[in-house]
């Protein structure tokens, strides 16, 4: 990096002045999130004396947080010194945070709607393996952020190259960080992604929000029991037609929610490659930019549900190691990928050789038996409860259909579970109605656990769990001797590996 650019950060620097606005926004956001049910009640009704007290309270809180934000803005400095990013902050309690530049694993730039209006960005510095050394800048001007990021990242690349003499950890020619686009999601493709989401999850979200609102309202002292009871009475006594109508309505609502949510979150999604890292950006109001260093990626997962299968698109997840293990933030989710995109990711991450001769092996049929047994016990319980209530209606059809559904999905799950191992890679498949695939280089394995339930012990079967720095992968119901062979082989590969896992 050019020295002149670096010099600009040698002196203690403050954030962009508009950071004050953002800090206030942050505080108010936090406060509102905690007291919003009260606010609603306050706006809807309540005694007038009560109202004026609350208003005063709110004004005091708002003023205090404003003052606090201004103070914390002026007490915040950052600068670069001796290859460290130093952050000084604190109003009452001063704190100094030193982040060695070679520890920085990734630097992400985010922009939410307020940032967009004010034309600034949020900069997130993530270090792996060092607890408490992640840091977020509330607001930096775009130029400042870009320069700072390139300095922070270039240092990382330099140290990597120094360490990796001989081994080509990073391809020399690629250090000139050229932007190579991989995926650009058009609006049409975005709609495809939205239509093929897991709509059950949307229904779940609606229900969660519903119950949350209900309990929030109850906290304030409004009786909701009566309405809920009426609703459930209606549900229990509902006829087949009513049940069908409800299902259709719920589906429409769910699809609508998924679609809107997808468009908001994944608007203008781009995936591109810059040298040794992958970068992903998306978002309509909340713009996000994330990056993953190839070397840090531990597991590559992809999969599709039946709808996505029809449209021939996949959801891809890049799981990378980070300081907070398996946090959602360290896993990049790329929607709307095609087979070709996945092939590119696989090849650019692992190379042809690592993917050769991956021959799939199935698991034991006892997996199916066991699953069916447990689900049948569940069904029997449901039937019991149903007949105890003693009212025959439309729900009965669904209960009866549940039995073949469970048998069918268990069979699918058994058929789709499989694994393949070659000299350097573990490949695991699973799924029920969905298909899920995962690739894991053996050098990334942290440890291996072989588990046996009593049922498995009797049949000499075992489940093997392979743990990495970003989640684990398991192969269920394989012969115990095979599990031991596999773990011996993984150990051998890890112990003889000279490649860094991170």
């Amino acid at each position, binding site marked *: 990096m050019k020295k002149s650019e670096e010099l600009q950060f040698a002196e203690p620097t403050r954030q962009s002045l508009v950071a004050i606005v953002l800090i206030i926004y942050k505080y108010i956001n936090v406060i509102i999130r905690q007291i919003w049910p009260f606010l609603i009640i306050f706006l809807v009704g309540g005694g007038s004396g009560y109202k004026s007290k609350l208003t005063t309270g709110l004004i005091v809180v708002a003023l205090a947080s404003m003052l606090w934000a201004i103070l914390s803005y002026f007490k915040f400095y950052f600068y670069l010194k001796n290859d460290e990013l130093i952050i000084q902050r604190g109003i009452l309690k001063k704190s100094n945070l030193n982040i060695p530049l070679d520890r920085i694993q990734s630097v992400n730039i985010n922009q939410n709607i307020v940032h967009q209006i004010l034309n600034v960005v949020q900069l997130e510095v993530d270090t792996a*393996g060092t607890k408490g050394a992640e840091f977020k800048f509330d607001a930096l001007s775009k130029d400042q952020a870009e320069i700072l990021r390139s300095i922070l990242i270039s240092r990382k690349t330099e140290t990597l190259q120094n360490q990796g003499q001989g081994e080509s950890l990073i391809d020399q020619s690629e250090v000139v960080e050229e932007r190579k686009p991989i995926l650009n999601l058009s609006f049409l493709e975005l709609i495809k992604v939205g239509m093929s989401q897991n709509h059950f999850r949307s229904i779940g979200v609606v229900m969660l929000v519903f119950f949350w609102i209900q309990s929030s309202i109850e906290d304030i002292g409004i009786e909701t029991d009566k309405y809920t009871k009426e609703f459930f009475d209606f549900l229990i006594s509902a006829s087949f037609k009513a049940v069908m109508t409800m299902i259709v309505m719920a589906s429409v609502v769910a699809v609508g929610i998924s679609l809107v949510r997808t468009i908001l979150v994944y608007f203008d999604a781009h995936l591109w490659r810059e040298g040794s890292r992958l970068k992903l950006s998306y978002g309509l109001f909340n713009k996000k930019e994330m990056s993953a260093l190839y070397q840090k990626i531990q597991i590559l997962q992809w999969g599709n549900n039946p709808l996505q299968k029809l449209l021939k698109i996949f959801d891809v997840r890049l799981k990378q*190691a980070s300081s907070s*293990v*398996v946090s959602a933030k360290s896993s990049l989710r790329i929607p709307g990928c095609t087979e070709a995109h996945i092939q590119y990711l696989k090849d650019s991450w692992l190379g042809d050789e690592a993917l*050769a*001769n991956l*021959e799939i*092996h199935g698991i034991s049929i006892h997996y199916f038996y066991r699953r069916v047994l447990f689900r049948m016990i569940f069904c029997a319980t449901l039937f019991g409860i149903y007949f105890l209530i003693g009212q025959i209606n439309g729900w009965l059809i669904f209960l009866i259909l549940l039995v073949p559904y469970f048998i069918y999905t268990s069979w699918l799950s058994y058929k789709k579970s499989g*694994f*393949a*191992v*070659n*000299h350097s890679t573990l490949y695991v498949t699973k799924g029920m109605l969905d298909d899920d695939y995962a690739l894991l280089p053996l050098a990334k*394995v*942290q*440890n*291996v*656990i*072989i*588990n*046996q*339930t*009593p049922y498995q*012990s009797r049949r000499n079967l075992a489940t093997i*769990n392979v*743990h*990495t*720095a970003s*989640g*684990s992968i398991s192969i269920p119901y394989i012969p115990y*001797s*095979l599990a*031991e*062979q*596999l*773990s*011996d*082989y993984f*150990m*051998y590969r*890890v*112990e003889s*590996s*000279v490649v860094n*896992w*991170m």
Partner: protein
Amino acid sequence: MPFSNTQLEISSLPSASTLVYKELNKDYLTASLIATLFTWIIIGVVAGIGLQMGQTDEEFNEIVGAYTQFIIIGLCALAVLSLLVTYFGFFKKGYAVREKDISYKTGLWWKSKTLIPFNRIQHCEVKQGPFERLFGLSSLRAFTAGGSASDLSINGLRQDEANHLKQYIITKTSADEEE
């Protein structure tokens, strides 16, 4: 064979199945039995006080009163069961150290065997609980980046044994880093 591609014979690999697992210290059995007993005594005392106090309450008597004996018998049965599990479970626990990795097995009914290569251990620590202290025992924990669920924890080592093992692991991990 699931590995059609490998040049090496799987059977020639060092196998963990032939490992001789070292049983934990006998004192640890006594310590864990006492700890289990102690836990159940506390539960018993709390339940006893609860039942005593409940006797004055009519509503409580109506619901629970009739089942008092069953509750007592149930608690005793659970206590005996957990003591038995602790006792027989002890003989299923064991650890083995090899040149390049360490493994620990445990579980009476739900069995598990953990294998951790030294070159993946981030740090390890020696800990001592109150009952372990009485018997001069320690436990050793080895941490990897694989998350807390997969960390290895060996209980019931003699204090010097634990420190020795820790030292061994540390020299092994640092040796790996230098290579």
